[in-house]
């Protein structure tokens, strides 16, 4: 998804703040329809969201992309607490013996 340099540039632009298609296209050497197509793909990938503002469509970073980070941390802490419990129980056995 992000291997495409134009898509990365679009995502970077949107990352700096909400923007309309025209504003994004103005800073890139590609046509406005091409930018729209890239935005559609980024939207499908869950990386940007689209809202209507009058006749314009405004694009911004999709905060739900954080869900994957959260899932990752969830597993990270589960592994850590499991390790802690194993260590604590071994300590507890030593104390009782």
């Amino acid at each position, binding site marked *: *998804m*992000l*291997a495409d340099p134009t898509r*990365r540039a679009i*995502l*970077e632009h949107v*990352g700096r703040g909400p923007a309309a298609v025209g504003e994004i296209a103005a800073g890139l050497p590609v046509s406005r329809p091409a930018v729209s197509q890239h935005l559609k793909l980024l939207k499908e*990938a*869950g*990386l940007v969201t689209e809202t209507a503002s009058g006749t314009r469509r405004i694009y911004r*970073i999709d*905060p739900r*992309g*954080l*869900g*994957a*980070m*959260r*899932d*990752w*941390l*969830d*597993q*990270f*802490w*589960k*592994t*850590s*607490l*499991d*390790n*802690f*419990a*194993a*260590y*604590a*129980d071994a*300590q*507890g*056995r030593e*104390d009782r013996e």
Partner: protein
Amino acid sequence: MSIAPIVQSVTVRLSQQQAFDAFATQMGRWWKPGMTIGARPHADIVIEPEPGGRWFERDADGIETDWGKVIDWDPPQRLLLGWQLDASFAFDPDLVTEVEIRFDGQDDGSTQVTLEHRLLERFGPSAQKVAESLRGGWPGLMQLFADFAQSQEDAR
């Protein structure tokens, strides 16, 4: 915009004070090898026992890599840490997400340890940076870490 905190708990057969000590002062002994960010395996993981103290890993050569800081040190019932690693595992002094660990003594002498990692929405800006750097997008993060963990194991 906020996202739900991560809340997990385990019950251990240690008193409240013992559980607090094991968690906070012996982290380097139970932390999973490879689940660290320094260039070399950790020799210790230190949580300095006072508010404002540092939370960091140290390798065998004494090289220290910061993870965050101590916000509240309140033995034996509570430890509040600031996790300051962004979504690409780089220390960011301007980022603070909270990891609270509560130790609740049970009637049978065991202790329930509950960990809550919250204010995760603060990962926002760096989460986007990671999305940009990972060509596969978000699912790639898990793989990145798995590859990293494997490389650490292979290095030993």
